[in-house]
């Protein structure tokens, strides 16, 4: 069993990520200061998605891809929805 510094653990958050088209969620640990878009890309790749501009939604709120997770109100234990940000046409 490894013991990591408390400070290191406080810099990360663990979230549950859902995808609208799948029944199974996945758990991710991100640096809390990671940009939303970067974290969403990691999650998208893990789910097997490529291309597009993924982001997270927390409930009804769509998170800004350019901002940090913590700045967008993401907290340890949150449930997020992974969505694509393509616009209407």
């Amino acid at each position: 069993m490894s013991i990591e510094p408390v400070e290191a653990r406080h810099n990360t958050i663990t979230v549950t990520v859902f995808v609208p088209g799948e029944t199974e969620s996945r758990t991710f640990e991100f640096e809390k200061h990671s940009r939303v878009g970067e974290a969403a890309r990691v999650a998208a790749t893990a789910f097997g998605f490529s291309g597009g501009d993924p982001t997270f939604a927390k409930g009804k709120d769509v998170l800004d891809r350019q901002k940090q997770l913590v700045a967008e109100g993401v907290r340890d234990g949150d449930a997020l929805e992974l969505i694509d940000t393509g616009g209407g046409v």
Partner: protein
Amino acid sequence: MLAVPRRASVQAMAAELPAAIAWARRHGLTLDHDEDALTLWLALTGPGAEPDTVEGYLLRGRFDDYRAIAPEWLFVDPETRKEIGADAFPAPPGVGAFGASLFIQNNSRVLICAHFNRLAYASHGGVHGDWGETTSWLTRRPGQTYATNIGSMLDRIYRDMAYTRGRRAPVAT
């Protein structure tokens, strides 16, 4: 004319429904479906025309020939489930969750303008002759909305509901 065996469409819809139902539950939404009729209904809400009011809508999806061609998405009367045209649609303020709203009006026709709606294609009366045939609905177009399963389509439409401002005025005849 393309014709997918009905059984194949039922199977395709049934395979995607569990995730769509789970998505709806996470968002506190009511999703009703009839696989034999290849149809689903999702009750949605959006801001009303007046401050602090809420408007109710009913989204209908039909899945004939799914997944060879895109489904058909439109809003119907929330009470009767009948097609009533523009009155059933929300009025978009022009922008949606990710740029231009999916809800548009073209001349007298209102529609959900997305690659995953067959009604958006010129071959089905829509505005997009540039998208080719409805069989190309799974092609990703950079910058444009992209959803290739029922749950993702529902989520994409749901996201734009927050930007609506009440029901669209009836279309003059």
